[in-house]
C-alpha cells in the first residue's frame, strides 16, 4: 500500500531471459499476474465457448453419443426457436423472471437492513445471528413440500422458496460486510465530531453499500438455483416446468435448450449487477468474482 497504487504507475516489464531475442508467446501471455491485451482476452473468452460447442458437435455429429442422449447443437438451436415461436416459452421465461424478481426483492428488502444492523450492533447480533446461522443450514429445497401444503404450487410458493433460500445467507453476508468496515473509519468520524447516529449514517452505511451490492449479485445466482428446483418439483409454468415436461416426453433437445436459457439469463442478471456496481460506486477499486 504505498506508491504502487498511483494510476500513473507504469506496467512492470516481464523479465526477459535472452537479451535481444523477441519475447516468445509464453513470456508474453503466461507471465504470472501480468496483464494481456484486451483483444487477446476477448478472443480467449470466445474461443472457450467455441471449444465446448466444438466438442459437443463432435460427440453428437460424429456418432460417439446417440442423438437421444445428446442431440447436436443445431437441433437444440432449432428446438429453442420452436419453443419461443410456437410453444409460448417467453411466457414461461417471464413467469420465472417474475418469481425471481419478487423473491429477490422481498429477501433483499429485509436482509439488507437486518444484516447491516447485525453487523453494526453487538446487541442485535447477539439476538439474531445464532438463529439465522442455524436456519441457514436447512436447505431451502427441503422446505418445498411444506410450502406446497401451505401455499399450493402457485407464485406464492415459488417466492417463498426463493425467500427462504436467499434471506438467511444474504443477511449473514451483509452482516459480514458491515462488521468488516475498518474501525478506524468510525473512530476518525468520532474525532471529527460525529454523533453515533452520524457515524452510522455517514460512515457505516456508505462504506457498506459496495459490499452489499456485490453480495446481491452473488445472491442472484442462488435465487436462480432455488427457483428452478421449486419449478421442477411442482409448477404449471416457468422454465423449470418446461424442462420437466420435456423430460417426460423424452425431448432431450428441449431440456438442453431450457438449461442454456437459464445460463443466458444468469449471465444477463450478473452483467446487470456488475454494471450497477460500476455505476453506483465509481470510486471503488474493483468488483469481486
Amino acid at each position: 500500500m504505498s506508491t504502487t497504487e498511483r494510476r500513473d504507475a507504469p506496467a512492470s516489464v516481464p523479465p526477459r531471459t535472452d537479451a535481444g531475442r523477441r519475447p516468445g508467446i509464453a513470456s508474453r501471455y503466461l507471465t504470472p499476474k501480468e496483464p494481456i491485451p484486451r483483444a487477446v482476452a476477448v478472443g480467449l473468452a470466445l474461443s472457450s465457448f467455441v471449444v465446448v460447442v466444438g466438442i459437443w458437435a463432435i460427440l453428437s455429429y460424429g456418432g460417439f453419443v446417440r442423438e437421444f442422449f445428446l442431440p447436436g447443437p443445431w437441433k437444440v438451436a432449432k428446438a429453442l426457436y420452436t419453443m419461443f415461436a410456437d410453444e409460448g416459452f417467453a411466457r414461461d421465461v417471464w413467469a420465472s423472471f417474475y418469481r425471481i424478481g419478487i423473491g429477490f426483492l422481498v429477501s433483499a428488502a429485509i436482509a439488507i437492513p437486518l444484516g447491516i444492523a447485525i453487523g453494526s450492533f453487538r446487541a442485535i447480533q447477539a439476538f439474531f445471528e445464532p438463529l439465522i446461522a442455524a436456519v441457514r443450514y436447512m436447505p431451502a429445497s427441503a422446505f418445498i413440500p411444506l410450502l406446497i401444503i401451505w401455499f399450493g404450487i402457485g407464485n406464492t410458493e415459488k417466492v417463498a422458496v426463493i425467500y427462504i433460500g436467499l434471506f438467511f445467507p444474504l443477511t449473514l453476508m451483509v452482516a459480514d460486510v458491515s462488521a468488516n468496515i475498518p474501525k478506524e473509519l468510525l473512530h476518525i468520524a468520532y474525532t471529527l465530531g460525529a454523533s453515533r447516529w452520524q457515524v452510522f449514517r455517514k460512515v457505516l452505511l456508505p462504506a457498506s453499500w459496495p459490499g452489499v451490492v456485490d453480495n446481491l449479485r452473488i445472491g442472484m445466482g442462488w435465487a436462480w438455483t432455488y427457483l428452478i428446483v421449486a419449478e421442477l418439483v411442482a409448477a404449471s409454468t416457468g422454465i423449470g416446468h418446461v424442462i420437466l415436461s420435456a423430460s417426460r416426453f423424452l425431448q432431450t433437445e428441449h431440456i438442453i435448450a431450457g438449461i442454456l436459457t437459464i445460463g443466458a439469463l444468469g449471465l444477463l442478471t450478473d452483467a446487470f449487477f456488475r454494471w450497477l456496481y460500476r455505476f453506483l460506486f465509481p470510486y471503488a477499486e474493483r468488483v469481486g468474482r
Partner: protein
Amino acid sequence: MSSIVARGVSMVFPTRNGDVRALDDVTVEIPDSHFACIVGASGCGKSTLLNIMAGLIRPTAGTIHVGDRPVEAPGADRGMVFQSYTLYPWLRVRENVEFGPSLKGVSKTDRRRTANRLLEEMGLTEFARAYPRELSGGMKQRVAIARALANDPEVLLMDEPFGALDALTRAAAQRFLTDIWEQHRRTIAFVTHDIDEAIYLGDNVFVMSRRPGRIQEIVEIDIPRPRSLDDIGTPRFAELKHHILSLIFQEMGQDGGEPERP
C-alpha cells in the same frame, strides 16, 4: 490553543490469560503549542495512550485534560490522524476535508472556503475532485491532515501517520508537517517508533518503557528551529539519538526483547 495533560493514566485490558497492564500510572504534560513525540518499543502502549487522549478508549484510572476540560469522549477539539489510510473512499478529496465541518452544520460556502485554503496549503488543489484511490500514500496522509485541520482543532493526535510511507515520501511528509505546524501552531502529540523522526519533529521526546508502559524520560530536543536535513548529520542529533536508543535498549535488555525495526 491548549495543553494536553494526562495524570496517573493506567490501562488494563482483560484477556483470557489474565489482565494485561498496558499503561501504568502515566503522567504526561504537553505544553500549549508544543510538538511532543512519543516513542517506545512496540507494545509499550503508546498508541493506547494516544487513543485515550482522543477519548476513543476510557482509561482504567487517571484523567486527561485538554486545556482545562476533562476528556470523556472523542470530540472535534482533538483532530486525529492514523497510520492506515482512513480517508472515506466514497468521498472526493474536497468532501473528505469538508467532512468535519459538514457534521457541525457549517454552511457550504464556509466549508468550501476552508477546504480550498487547506488543499492549497497541502499542494493538492488540482486533486480536489479526485477520489482517494487515485492518490499516492503521501498525498492521502496530507489529505488526512487537512481533514483534521479543517475542524480547527485545539490539538492534533497523530498515530504513526507516516509509518506506511516509503523512506523518501516520509522525509518529504516530515518537512511538510513541520511547515504546517509552524503556520498553524497546534499542540501535537505524535506517536512513532522512528527515533530520527521523533528528534527531527519534536520539541520533546517522551520515551516510554516496555509494558506496562511508563514514561521513562522526557528528552528535550534543543536543536533550533527551523530544522533542516542538515541537522540530521550533526553530532548533537547523533548524541540525542544515541541517548534515546540506549534508554530503549537498556530497558529491553532486561527481558531479551527485540526492538521494533523502524
